[in-house]
């Protein structure tokens, strides 16, 4: 038990500290690297709560794909981050005011929060012991039965995103030389090479 508590505080502390570093780091590449660290520690927290599937997904999808994509974007787009930060001082008062109002409102709403009695039971209840199902299997069963409609529709949303990206960015440019492997392989020697007899003392 004590080991778990230590692990929890370790993961939680590093996650929060790394998250702070994401927004304060001067170098955007460092920001992204700290973001990766945050994701890793969040994945550790998931493992502690027994959600090993979510932990793996977090590492594979967020660290493996999203964060690396960020890194690419940061490196390839030459964004002047110093310039972006210049507005920070100027907008701090109004931004701080709005944040304070929002915080006040959330506290106000949270103050009258009444947790339904059955929720308390659900929180303490762990994964049903003794059932042979792993997390992954359970999620899969839910996704393909109760939530199959949403699952398929989410696929349609991604489909639209893909079509949209192609519609808005793909351009047919004339005069671009493309690789045509069939034609390249089919070339014969006598089509391309011509032997010339060059006599000594004369040019071609």
């Amino acid at each position, binding site marked *: 038990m004590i080991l778990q508590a230590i692990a929890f505080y370790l993961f939680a502390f590093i996650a929060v500290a790394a998250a702070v570093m994401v927004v304060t780091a001067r170098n955007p590449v460092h920001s992204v690297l700290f973001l990766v660290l945050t994701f890793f520690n969040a994945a550790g927290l998931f493992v502690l709560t027994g959600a090993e599937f979510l932990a793996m997904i977090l590492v594979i999808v967020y660290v493996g794909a999203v964060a690396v994509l960020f890194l690419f974007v940061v490196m390839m787009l030459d964004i002047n981050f110093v310039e972006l930060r210049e507005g920070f001082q100027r907008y701090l008062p109004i931004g701080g005011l709005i944040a304070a109002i929002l915080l006040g409102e959330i506290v106000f*709403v949270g103050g*009258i*929060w*009444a947790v*339904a009695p*059955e*929720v308390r039971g659900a929180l303490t209840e762990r994964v049903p012991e003794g059932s042979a199902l792993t997390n992954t299997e359970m999620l899969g069963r839910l996704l393909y*039965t*109760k*939530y*199959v*409609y*949403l699952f*398929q*529709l*989410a696929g*349609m*949303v991604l*489909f*639209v*995103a893909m*079509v*949209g990206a*192609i*519609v*808005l960015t793909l351009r*047919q440019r004339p005069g671009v030389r493309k690789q045509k492997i069939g034609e390249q392989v089919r070339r014969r020697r006598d089509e391309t090479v011509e032997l010339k007899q060059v006599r000594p003392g004369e040019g071609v």
Partner: protein
Amino acid sequence: MILPNLEYAASEMFVAVAAMVLLMIGVFRGEGSARLVSALSILVLAAAAAITVWMSPGESRMAFAGMFVSNGYTTFLKVGILLASAVGIVLSVGYNAREAIERFEYPVLIVLAALGMMVMVSAGDLLSLYIGLELQSLSLYVIAAIRRDSVKSSEAGLKYFVLGALASGMLLFGASLVYGFAGTTAFAGLAAQLTGASAPSVGLVVGLVLVMVGLAFKVSAVPFHMWTPDVYEGAPTPVTAFFAAAPKLAAMGLFVSVLAGPFGGLVKQWSQIVIVLAIASMVLGAFAAIAQTNIKRLMAYSSIGHIGYALVGLASGTKDGYSAVLVYMAIYIVMTLGAFAVILAMQRSGRMVEEIGDLTGLSRTNPLMAAMMLIFMFSMAGIPPLAGFYAKLYVFLAAVEAELYFLAVIGLVTSVVGAYYYIRIVKVMYFDEPEDALDPRPGRDLGAIQFVAGMATLLFFLFPSLLVGAADTAVFSLTGG
């Protein structure tokens, strides 16, 4: 059987599969296939409307573990959505070819948007509502920016995307609050908890308000209307025509079904907000349109005003009110599509023009088109015996019966103000000296849409019971007697 009642979602499945098939046809036939894919898309949408009617159950039926609901109400809306989307594609074919933005993805994206709208109005759960809304919005963002070499069109797409994402965020935040306080996202579960509840928790009401903000953005009710004029002006004209029709009907239908269904028990709470939205939309729609010179911006403000009138019916919180909303939206769509068919026919020596001043002397150069535009403008202004008059009449009657007298009075005053700019267009067409005549012949497709919409608007008073009866039956199946 794990998934009972699948057959009620037959039209959705058909549209989803058909969209992918259409895309495949476009990809394999290459660049020149836009016309073929457009024609097939229109057929697909019409077939889907037929399937919807054919498969429509008498009373409410659920499928997919309560995520999907099918009843007379959803059938009414889906048929409207599918037909309006099909007309949207018809309007686009000639324009896209002329402006060299003909792409086979365009009709496919409209079909996918129509799928999103069908999912939205059939939602039986906050989750399916959100996914449907996103499917629709994402397709619309892309269509708005379809003319990617034009700064205005790209700006319209980006603006719509950023603001739409913000609205989706609001809606999701509200949905999560509702889930936190009610413990369920299913509409049936929410309705069971909220009917007869003496004092709903404040958190739930906050959640409801945020969900309403998201929906108000989608119908472009004031004060969430900022995107409308810019997007309408920047997007290519047939896209604007499509935006003003089908998505508005879907979002409004969703607004009604969410508020009347799961949140029906909170009618006291939400009707105040709807009243504010309605008044603000009617007033802004009437006054801001006066100064416009671009006819697409004018139509944007006009649509904001019309949404305000439709919200009057919703604010009454009665069955007659909901039915009046449906009638209003159906008539609004017919008028709007007709008016856009006229706007699309506004060309001078092959180039599109979109200033109101370009219509001068249309009555002499093209009397039939001018007469049709006259019908649409008078109908939008609410002059009897045209359809727009009846639409407003039903809405205001519902408000008066719910004892919302001031709302009806404000509505009357703003429609008098609004009549000014509609009638100004008629004046420009009929009494101003023509300067540069517009090209005389619109395409046959535009002419047909103008004529059909014009006749429907003109002759509505002969058969009002067709539409009103259908709307009443639809609402009956929504509220369950």
